[in-house]
């Protein structure tokens, strides 16, 4: 009976209040009944209610009360209250009772009400609810309930409401949303409220009270899985990192928190955290040995972050691997990871079929983890690593993509250096670029603690040094000026010298006749004469066209076989420009010669690539309109000294492709707006066939030294690209339709070639066919092929591992569609007219 008494008392009192509020019009009655309701929430000595009554009210009547208030939100008595009374009595009920119930009622109210003053009222209450720290109270109260008393459904709903609050308010309020409900602000607030709850938990644990972190962990997990880990951990990670530095209780709380995160949300929490913390130590302090106890966490850290995903910064890799290496119990995992990484790196199929970025990521991870190994562990793994290194380097060096080759070289160098193979080291020659430097830098461990600890004195030091340096300079200047006058009065100092940097050594006199050049190149052993001949040859070819025609094929032959015996600066480009000049000057015989030689025996890959490049450049030059003041020798040779030989430069290749695509895109969209160029005869159109068809004739006849469809796919890729270029340059030429048909037939066989350079070439060629072929020919001649081509292109655009290939495929699809559309419209228009 005793226990029943407070229940009934409270129920009677609450019912009384409800009745008064629904029926009475007297303000005094209203106020007094609201105050009665308040009295059940008041704590402290002057409270009119007993703790039993308060607990009963909170348990059974608070939600009901709030719902009642909401349902009477339009009642006259509410409007009758003064603003101060309303804030105190009406709003106060929401802000002082159990926060989880209040939040649920508020969210329910917000989602039910339409835009009105009542909604505004609720919104302002919710705003105050958030700003007055009620969320922290909510979380903290959940921590105190060691055993969950309420139903799982209720918890689930509450969790959903907490996490979805920004969405709910945004849906309801649209543009009138309050700033504190915006995700960025709200989740920052939520994060700091979670920190508050954790802090209270720490305090409570120190005082000997048990707490449960299940609800906080669930909140954290749900927030992260919905994609808000960024703002949350931006607040939480630095604070946790600092707190766990010295405080064991904090560490235990953090470990517990992460252990309590439900499995399905573990991944997003860990990825968010690992990106936000600075350095492996902080990560280790916060996470503890979670990877050893939690399978999911282990999978995420050791597998998913390293081998499956590759979007993260290098810092994340450092954090993860450093974390694994930092603890004795976790070190076996590091070895396991290293094995997996080395297998992934060395896998030839992965080299061919995974995106380049992922390979770079794996390489970075591999280098970092090798660097973390101790010598004893290294001995244990040595044979495996060696095998991985050798196999992996082979597959990397086989690749036709320069970046992959570089990657293989750098990783090979680093691994061999680390493994200390009888004091021998691999050393490759490659150009240092950002990527290789970054990879190399991974081998030098970053020493020192996390940067957060460093005080600001780092900022002041540069100023000091900068102040110092001028003073020393001044001193030295003064010394100089002091010593000077004594030395010599009549010096030459009254004249200040001119710039004499152009004063270089002279070279010998260069030949004046093309035939002399030819003779020198054939027979001379004098390096200077050979060099001079090479340097003037192009200018001589262009200067005297008739003389050049007499010996064009002969000189081309000699140049094709000339080797850089004397390490002449810019040899390759000199030879190339001369051959281009010869091809342009005496087009048909030279192209005939070069295209025949392309398929003949006993040439190196380099020479075959040279042939293709010369033909491509010559075709480009021919297709350009002749301008009066054109001086090709100056234009070409002046830049040759500076630029690398194009074939040696991987960036060049890609840039050229990209530039061409862009120029094409522009041409389609802006074609009409550009002023028509002055008409000049196209020198390329009449001879396009001579460039094009001989190269198509023999590709499928493998020879002893040259197998185009087999191992020599580097040449195949370049060949197809060159053919595509010929096609592109032949736009508006009568022969374009035939060329396009032949080219499509040719590339069809190699469209799924395993080498990405070949695939790029194929797609480029297809692009240029669509660009250059007249649209009616496209439709009539290629009728049956077009459908299949479309399917293939769509397939590539979706599934090719190489990004360039995908882009090119999309480009071709767009071009094809435009071309077809234009043609169909034209036909319709014709049909209408007739």
């Amino acid at each position, binding site marked *: 009976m005793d226990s029943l008494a407070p229940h009934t008392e409270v129920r009677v009192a609450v019912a009384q209040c409800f009745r008064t509020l629904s029926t009475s019009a007297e303000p005094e009655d209203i106020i007094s009944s609201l105050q009665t309701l308040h009295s059940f929430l008041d704590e402290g000595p002057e409270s009119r209610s007993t703790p039993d009554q308060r607990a009963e009210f909170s348990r059974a009547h608070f939600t009901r009360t709030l719902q009642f208030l909401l349902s009477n939100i339009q009642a006259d008595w509410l409007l009758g209250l003064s603003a101060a009374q309303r804030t105190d009595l009406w709003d106060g009920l929401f802000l002082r009772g159990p926060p989880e119930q209040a939040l649920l009622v508020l969210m329910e109210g917000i989602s039910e009400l339409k835009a009105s003053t009542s909604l505004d009222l609720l919104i302002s209450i919710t705003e105050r609810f958030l700003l007055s720290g009620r969320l922290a109270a909510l979380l903290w109260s959940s921590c105190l309930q060691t055993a969950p008393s309420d139903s799982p459904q209720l918890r689930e709903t509450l969790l959903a409401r907490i996490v979805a609050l920004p969405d709910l308010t945004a849906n309801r309020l649209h543009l009138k949303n309050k700033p504190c409900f915006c995700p960025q602000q709200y989740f920052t607030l939520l994060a700091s409220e979670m920190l508050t709850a954790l802090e209270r938990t720490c305090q409570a644990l120190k005082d000997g009270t048990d707490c449960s972190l299940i609800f906080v962990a669930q909140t954290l997990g749900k927030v992260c899985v919905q994609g808000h880990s960024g703002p949350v951990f931006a607040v939480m990670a630095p604070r946790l990192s600092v707190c766990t530095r010295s405080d064991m209780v904090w560490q235990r709380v953090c470990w517990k928190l992460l252990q309590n995160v439900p499995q399905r949300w573990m991944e997003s929490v860990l990825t968010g955290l690992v990106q936000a913390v600075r350095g492996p130590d902080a990560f280790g302090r916060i996470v503890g040995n979670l990877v050893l106890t939690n399978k999911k966490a282990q999978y995420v850290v050791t597998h998913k972050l390293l081998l499956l995903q590759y979007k993260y910064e290098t810092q994340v890799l450092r954090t993860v691997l450093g974390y694994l290496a930092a603890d004795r119990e976790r070190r076996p995992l590091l070895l396991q990871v290293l094995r997996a990484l080395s297998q992934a790196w060395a896998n030839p199929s992965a080299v061919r079929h995974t995106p380049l970025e992922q390979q770079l990521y794996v390489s970075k991870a591999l280098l970092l983890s090798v660097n973390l190994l101790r010598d004893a562990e290294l001995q244990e793994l040595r044979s495996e690593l060696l095998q991985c290194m050798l196999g992996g380097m082979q597959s990397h060096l086989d690749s036709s993509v320069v970046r992959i080759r570089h990657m293989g070289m750098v990783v090979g160098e680093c691994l061999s250096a680390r493994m200390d193979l009888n004091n021998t080291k691999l050393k490759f020659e490659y150009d240092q670029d950002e990527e290789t430097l970054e990879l190399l830098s991974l081998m030098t461990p970053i020493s020192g603690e996390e940067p957060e600890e460093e005080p600001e004195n780092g900022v002041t030091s540069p100023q000091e040094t900068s102040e110092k340096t001028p003073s020393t300079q001044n001193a030295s200047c003064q010394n100089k000026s002091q010593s000077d006058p004594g030395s010599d009065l009549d010096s030459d100092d009254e004249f200040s010298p001119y710039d004499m940097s152009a004063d270089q050594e*002279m070279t010998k006199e260069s030949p004046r006749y093309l035939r002399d050049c030819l003779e020198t190149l054939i027979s001379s052993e004098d390096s200077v004469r050979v060099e001079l001949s090479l340097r003037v040859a192009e200018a001589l070819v262009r200067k005297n066209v008739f003389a050049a025609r007499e010996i064009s094929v002969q000189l081309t032959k000699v140049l094709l076989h000339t080797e850089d015996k004397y390490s002449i600066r810019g040899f390759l480009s000199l030879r190339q420009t001369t051959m281009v000049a010869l091809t342009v000057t005496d087009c048909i015989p030279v192209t005939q010669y070069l295209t025949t030689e392309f398929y003949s025996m006993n040439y190196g890959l380099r020479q075959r690539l040279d042939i293709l490049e010369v033909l491509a450049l010559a075709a480009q030059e021919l297709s350009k309109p002749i301008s009066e003041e054109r001086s090709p020798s100056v234009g070409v040779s002046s830049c040759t000294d500076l630029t690398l030989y194009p074939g040696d430069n991987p960036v060049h290749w890609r840039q050229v492709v990209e530039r061409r695509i862009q120029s094409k895109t522009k041409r389609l969209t802006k074609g009409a707006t550009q002023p028509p160029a002055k008409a000049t005869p196209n020198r390329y159109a009449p001879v396009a066939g001579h460039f094009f068809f001989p190269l198509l004739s023999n590709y499928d006849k493998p020879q002893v030294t040259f197998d185009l469809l087999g191992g020599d796919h580097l040449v195949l890729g370049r060949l197809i690209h060159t053919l595509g270029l010929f096609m592109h340059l032949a736009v508006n030429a009568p022969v374009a339709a035939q060329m396009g048909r032949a080219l499509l037939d040719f590339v069809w066989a190699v469209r799924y070639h395993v080498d990405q350079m070949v695939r790029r070439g194929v797609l480029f060629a297809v692009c240029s066919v669509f660009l250059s072929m007249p649209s009616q020919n496209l439709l009539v001649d290629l009728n049956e092929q077009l459908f299949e081509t479309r399917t293939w292109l769509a397939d590539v655009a979706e599934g090719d591992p190489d990004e360039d290939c995908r882009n090119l495929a999309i480009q071709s699809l767009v071009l094809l569609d435009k071309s077809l559309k234009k043609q169909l419209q034209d036909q319709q228009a014709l049909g209408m007219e007739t």
Partner: protein
Amino acid sequence: MSRAAPSPIFTLRGAGAPLNTLHFSCHGGDTPLLFSGSGKGAIHMWNLNTRRAETVAEGHSGNSVVWVNTLQGTDTLISQGRDMRVCLWDLSEGRTAVLDSLWTGSVGFCQCSLLEMSTGTHLLAFAGQQTEEIKIVELPSKTPVCTLIPDAKLGMVMCIKLWQPDSGPGPLLLAGYEDGSLLLWDVTQRAQLSQTKAHPEPVMCLTFDPQCLRGVSGSSEKDLCSWRLDGQNNLQLQDSVPLVNPGVSQLCVRGDGKLLASAGWDHRVRIFGWKKLRPLAVLQYHTDLVLSVAFSDHQDPRQRLLAAGSKDQRISLWSIFNEGADTG
């Protein structure tokens, strides 16, 4: 920051042949003139105001003119050609007539050297018929003064410079020989005063500044060699100045003794400070060997010009380091 190398202020074209020698005559009141001797025997008289060749004189029957000069105070031009003759020209009142000529017998390229003794009389030194022979005659009388032949075999005479020291009684003569030796002769005593081996290769050119008793000589190699005379008329070698490219055709010191110019086989004219031989500028314009350089004798130092004649048949004129002239 150092300034960009200057460009010529103008060029003279149309000589149609390599320009072996240049000589300014800007001293007189009327138009400033530049004389040039070409490889085809023509002597051009360029008017520096109109920048055109005013007169062209042909007197060496098509043989290369290796040296031109003017006799001070008279309108007389003196020229030396590869036809082994030295001609004296009367230029007064627009005439171009050969007054007199002198047979030298030298087949070499050695340029003559002229020294004014007193008003109207000059000494002319030239290479003689024999290999090492230097002859000196008095002009205009053509009286032989002396013949100087060294004791040792030194090869051909390559270049000579006749000058009058302030202290000594008679004129002295500096001569460079084919084996790279430099000799100092006393003309009145007909005695060899000093000898030094300045270059491993033939001495191609030399110039001497009587004010500070210093000189510099060039050769076919990569170094300029500087030397000085001490009180006892001994030749002392000083430091050499490295050049970027080998070969110097001619050297010339500016009248105020501040600049030295060199005509290089590398198509470039180099300017040095004369005191310390500090390189000051490299003038690039010509496309073939520069054969001669000359500083003008303008009375106003700001108008002074530097002329360079080249095998590419052009003369370039430069105005360089004239701004600081009046301060120094």
